């Protein structure tokens, strides 16, 4: 007890106050750096498991195969790890239900764009993911109908993730869902 009191009396409170100030800086730095450094982020988990640009139909979540934490076993997912460095990426998808959705993420897990079947009010979607000027996008050969309805998304970073979610209303919808997935694509646009 005597030793503890002596130790406390010997403390220089300036050092403790300075420690608290540095603690604040450590706190802010940690929070701001985590999206870029987290080894458990979705990008880190998917980077080596998925190729660049083709749309990949993910296996249904199960105890054996689950690429990301808390994935839904009753949602079917398709993923495109896009890279627009060499030009725009074009995505052709079908949203068969109001609850189906397409979401785009930066490598730091930031969802910067999302659209659902409820928003879209139509089934077929053509999406152009780009970092280039509008004039470059107009050079992409598209049918007149597809061009007029195409959604152009300007990405904040050249690389990112596109995730298509298709909740299953029941297993009876599974063949229709899988068939729709096989008709979808993601890849560099022809110019």
């Amino acid at each position, binding site marked *: 007890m005597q030793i503890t009191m002596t*130790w406390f009396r*010997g*403390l*220089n409170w300036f*050092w*403790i106050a*300075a*420690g*608290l100030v*540095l*603690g*604040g*800086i*450590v*706190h802010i*730095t*940690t*929070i*701001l750096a*985590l*999206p*870029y450094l*987290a080894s*458990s*982020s*979705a990008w880190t*988990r998917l980077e080596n498991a998925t190729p660049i640009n083709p749309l990949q139909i993910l296996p249904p*979540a*199960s*105890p*054996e195969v*689950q690429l*990301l*934490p*808390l994935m*839904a*076993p*009753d*949602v079917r997912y398709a993923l495109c790890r896009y890279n627009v460095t060499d030009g725009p990426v074009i995505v052709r998808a079908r949203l068969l239900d*109001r*609850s189906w*959705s397409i*979401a785009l*993420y930066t490598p*730091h*897990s*930031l*969802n910067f*764009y*999302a659209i*659902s079947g*409820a*928003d879209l009010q139509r089934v077929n979607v053509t999406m152009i993911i780009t970092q280039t000027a509008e004039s470059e996008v107009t050079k992409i050969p598209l049918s007149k109908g597809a061009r007029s309805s195409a959604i152009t998304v300007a990405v904040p970073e050249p690389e990112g*993730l596109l*995730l298509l*979610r298709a*909740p*299953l*209303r*029941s297993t009876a919808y599974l063949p229709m869902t899988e068939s729709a997935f096989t008709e979808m694509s993601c890849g560099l646009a022809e110019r």
Partner: protein
Amino acid sequence: MTFLANFIVFVSVALLTGLGSAWYMIEHGTRLTTDRIGPWIVWTAAGHADADPYTRAYVARSGRLPITSSGARYYLATVDDSGRKLDADCEYEVIGRGPTAEWWSLAAYDGEGQLMPNPADRYTFSSASILRDESGTYRIVLARQARPGNWLPVNSDYRVILFLRTYQPELIDEDVDSPAAKPDLPRIRRLQCR
């Protein structure tokens, strides 16, 4: 006290307060970043393009890819209605009528967010697959052993996480501090423990 001892105190205080508070803010959330509805926690800005730094850090660390909150809402429970940790050695009933959404599903995971293997190959109940009584109320029983009705098997050595995802939810202002303004989320009641 020597310079070295003071320096050790300085570094210790800095790391403990800096890293400890950052861990707490991300692991538990606060009223600034999360809303608590009974045992359910929702990160209100998860999936928003203009999410605050704490939510961004939480999302990145979680390994999840949440979608913007107008299109989806995610509720996570690690405790029951009484605030006790969900334990795989206990049985729970999850009772409710909602939430109101185009589609929702409730799944059970282990502490790492992984689905738990079970002989029934059953991992989830959705708004389409759940059995309800005449009043529209459903009752899900979480248990290791099979139970009649909506049985959701749990098979973990330790923690259990319940995750409720809603797509195209009825938009409710969860910041309004009134029961009527809260989404209709199910209750989680402990039945018994082994």
